[in-house]
């Protein structure tokens, strides 16, 4: 029976062929994998046919979607250094918990696993490879049958969450006493999230899914262009020289709804192209707008509902109001809300609106396919001048700190950032062909595509992907994987022309050339999934 199923199944769903579409980082190249898969495909097909004399007349089990969810508290157990600002901030209190939310999906046909995806969203500044790899190791120990490359980790970009990169590359001079150390928190994260993945995966059971689209004005383009052509992040807009916000915004709210077999809503994925950094300057632990979003969603849909927040392409976006602020503020005040509450109101209204439309359109027989590959992107070269400037700046900060150690609170991160740039330059000198290697995930779930990238990806790229995708709805998820360093932006050509922080080599490992390669490859992988019938 199972063999018969392989004949009628699409070729990509055969476990024996998983190697075809799972390309391990640094192991082999895409073309070699593809040709190998074709070999297997042609070898297996006739065998399967021979083993199935009745052909399609034999009933095969229906394809089903198994869904498992888990949420876990990842709030640090004590004061911790916070990431996202130049100054060292040690958290003074916990305003909201930080959570990791896990959605495990498996497509099955009878006893046969067709494909899987385990998606983790965390209230963290990003979802770096370093943490993901630890999670994969933890999970692999306990779930050896799960292909851990099918796990991806994304961050909501909250700037009131712990520093994730320790050691020599840590941007902050974190006191040894009175703060949870980075390595300690990393281990805690890996353990906690690993547990959650195991829980989600082992609890998976037949369920159904649908998608919805609505809108919420949450993000504003934060790059301001002036009459002289220059651009500035968070530049003032109330000046005569102000010309325009550099680029557009994407106010889509994409939603995925999952139900268990009994019809109980168990998970909602919400995709918003806006980083969670409204309260980014606080010296507290705070999940930013995702906390009130989750609170509100659970109040309406049930306390057990697992809410995953995905940040769409939003490298040039921010929830900070860029114009019309007094009008917005007045409305927020009259509603009796604060800014986080107002953002949550908008997102939750969008989710509610979408839910009301799609709640009866549940699909339990959907195509689930998950491609993972390593994409090698050209590194944005640091120029000789930038190198010299960085070296001098690094020294300047080091001297200032040497003279007055108290200044390290404000200057240490700047010094380390310049130092990283110097190292990057030295690496590129030593290896001119070096590339930025990223893990790219593309998931098809019925009519929906989910595409990841590790950047603070400028919105234009997300729109390019959406525009060219053959999926009815495409979810772009940024800050998924990656090095988790201080150069995460991926700006557009026009942004580079305008310059400024977040659009110059020092704050970007990859430039517009790499951006286009990312778009092209993401679109190619996505659209390949729509070439064949389910």
């Amino acid at each position, binding site marked *: 029976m199972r063999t018969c199923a392989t004949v009628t199944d699409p070729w990509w769903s055969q476990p024996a062929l998983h190697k075809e579409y799972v390309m391990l980082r640094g192991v082999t190249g895409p073309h070699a994998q593809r040709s190998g898969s074709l070999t297997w495909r042609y070898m297996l097909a006739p065998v399967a046919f021979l083993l199935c004399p009745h052909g399609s007349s034999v009933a095969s089990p229906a394809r089903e979607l198994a869904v498992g969810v888990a949420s876990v508290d990842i709030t640090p157990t004590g004061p911790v250094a916070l990431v996202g600002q130049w100054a060292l901030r040690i958290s003074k209190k916990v305003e909201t918990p930080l959570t990791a939310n896990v959605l495990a999906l498996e497509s099955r046909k009878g006893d046969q696993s067709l494909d899987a995806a385990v998606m983790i969203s965390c209230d963290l500044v990003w979802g770096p490879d370093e943490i993901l790899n630890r999670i994969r190791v933890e999970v692999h120990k306990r779930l050896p049958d799960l292909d851990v490359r099918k796990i991806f980790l994304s961050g909501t970009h909250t700037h009131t969450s712990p520093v994730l990169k320790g050691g020599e590359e840590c941007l902050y001079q974190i006191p040894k006493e009175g703060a949870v150390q980075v390595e300690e928190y990393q281990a805690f994260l890996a353990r906690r999230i690993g547990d959650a993945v195991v829980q989600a995966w082992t609890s998976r059971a037949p369920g159904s899914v649908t998608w*919805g*689209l*609505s*809108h*919420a*004005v949450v993000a504003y*383009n934060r790059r301001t262009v002036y009459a002289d052509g220059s651009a500035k992040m968070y530049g003032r*807009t*109330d*000046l*005569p020289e*102000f*010309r*325009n*916000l550099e*680029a*557009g*915004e994407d*106010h*889509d709210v994409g939603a995925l709804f999952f139900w268990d077999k009994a019809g109980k809503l168990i998970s909602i994925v919400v995709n918003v192209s806006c980083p969670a950094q409204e309260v980014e300057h606080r010296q507290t632990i705070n999940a930013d707008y995702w906390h009130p979003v989750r609170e509100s969603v659970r109040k309406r849909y049930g306390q057990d509902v697992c809410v995953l927040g995905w940040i769409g392409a939003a490298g040039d976006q921010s929830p900070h109001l*860029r*114009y*019309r602020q*007094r*009008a*917005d503020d*007045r*409305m927020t005040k*009259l*509603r009796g809300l604060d800014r986080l509450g107002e953002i949550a109101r*908008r997102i939750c*209204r969008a989710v509610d609106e*979408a839910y009301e*439309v*799609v709640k009866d*359109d549940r699909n339990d027989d959907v195509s689930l396919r998950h491609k993972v590959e390593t994409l090698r992107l050209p590194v944005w070269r640091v120029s000789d001048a930038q190198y010299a400037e960085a070296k001098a700046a690094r020294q300047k900060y080091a001297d200032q700190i040497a003279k007055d150690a108290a200044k390290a609170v404000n200057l240490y991160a700047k010094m380390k950032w310049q130092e990283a740039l110097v190292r990057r330059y030295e690496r590129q000198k030593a290896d001119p062909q070096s590339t930025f290697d990223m893990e790219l995930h593309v998931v098809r779930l019925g*009519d929906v595509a989910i595409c990841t990238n590790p950047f603070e990806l400028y919105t*234009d790229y997300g*729109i*390019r992907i*959406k*525009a*060219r995708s053959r999926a*009815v*709805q*495409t979810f772009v998820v940024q800050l998924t994987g990656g090095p988790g360093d201080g150069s995460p932006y991926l700006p*557009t*050509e*026009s942004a580079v022309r305008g310059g400024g922080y977040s659009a110059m080599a020092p704050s970007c490992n990859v430039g517009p050339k790499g951006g*286009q390669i990312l778009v*092209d490859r993401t*679109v190619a992988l996505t659209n390949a999934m729509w070439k064949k019938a389910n």
Partner: protein
Amino acid sequence: MTNNAVLQVDRNDFRSSRRQFLGSAMGGLAAGSLAEAAARADAEPGTRREARGGETQGLRVGWSMTDITPPKPASMRGFFKKRISTGVRDRLMATALALEGPKLDGVAQQSIQISCDLCGVAKTTQEDVRRLVKKRLGDFDVGRLVLYATHTHQGPYEKSGRFGTKHDITPQEQAKGAMTGDEYAALLADKLAEAAVQAWTGRKPGGVSWALEHAAAGFNRRFVYLNGAAKMLRPVDTPEFDCVEGVEDHGLGLLFFWDPQGQLTGVVINVACPAQTEQGSTIISADFWCEVREEIAARHKGVFVLPQCGAAGDIYPKAMFRRRAEEAMAKRRGIPWRREIARRIAEGMERALPIAQSDVAKHPIFRHAVVQVNLPTQPPSVRPSYVCDPVDPAECHVMRLGDVAIATNPFELFTDYGIRIQARSKATMTLVVQLAGQCSGYLPSARAVRGGGYGADKYLVGPDGGRILVDRTVEAINGLYDAPK
């Protein structure tokens, strides 16, 4: 041949629009509502005292609405191809709002704004209306009357000769029952003048409140390709697609007007999106504003709706890059796209209403300045083929109504300019209203001109003029807030 066929359509089509009920119903209800409001106002002690005092101490508000659907087939404005209307899907309406505040330094503070379900209003139309109103209203300065359009592409030319003579009704077509642009112009002027007079003479004490909400109605329609060229409404699913050229403003500016009993009498809805979901048929329609009015009428009987189109020269009511998802959602809702746009607007208003209701101002500062701005123009060789009303000067109306400013301009103004005005305005909320007073074509931004393409290749006024327009508008708005209260 085609035109002959068009003209053979039974004119009953024009009278038997399936949506005619709305205009009639609204007209009837409106009259009733105003009468009731007047009666209620007379019964309200505070209001009566003000009336006996001989001068209004607070805001006085008047509304009216009139049907401006052409009674015969007419040449339709909005596309390069000549179209003569063959039927009416829904009625074209004009809604008038009259406002009067206490005199300031002996100067009457008054305005009449009329929003029309038209592609644009010619300068001559506004002049004609002013002339007619002047004959009938001795206590109103007709220079304070301003018309504006929703930019439906399913309405008639408001005058002959607006596209050279190419789109004008020929004598032969006229002989077969079509009306010329000039015939319609006369009818329109009469109707609008009557609406203005009704609104003005019907004004009563009222309160105002405002709200900002959001509705994803307008989407940028200019797309930039990797070679730097920009095009309007061209495919985005190609490897050459670079980005959407500019931003969108999904703000939904709302002004609610209340009678002394706290009943809602009307609402101004400012949306930075032209009413052009319909794509060039020969059927008369107000586009999504018809559905907006229906949605609001279903919830708030007899409430007037005054549409304003914000700066939206580069905006369009359809999203190109997630079109399939948008259309699929509308299909799941079981509604056509224009109803979907209306739903977003009407529901945005509903969300704001409780907030607005809680903060009604009965004595807001009302001031109205008319600014004449001379703008630099392009040489004739690079102007558009359609007629642009001259801008030497362009007339801009700037009003202050409490915390809210209203600023008009005569262009299809690119969104960037609207955002600049809002960003620099001292008003808490600023409603930019395009296509007001006259039609002077697109006013593209500098980045749009760099990309070229329709809307940014031929224009009367370019980015230099845009800068002047913004500066003068901001100066005028801020002047209303700087002056002694």
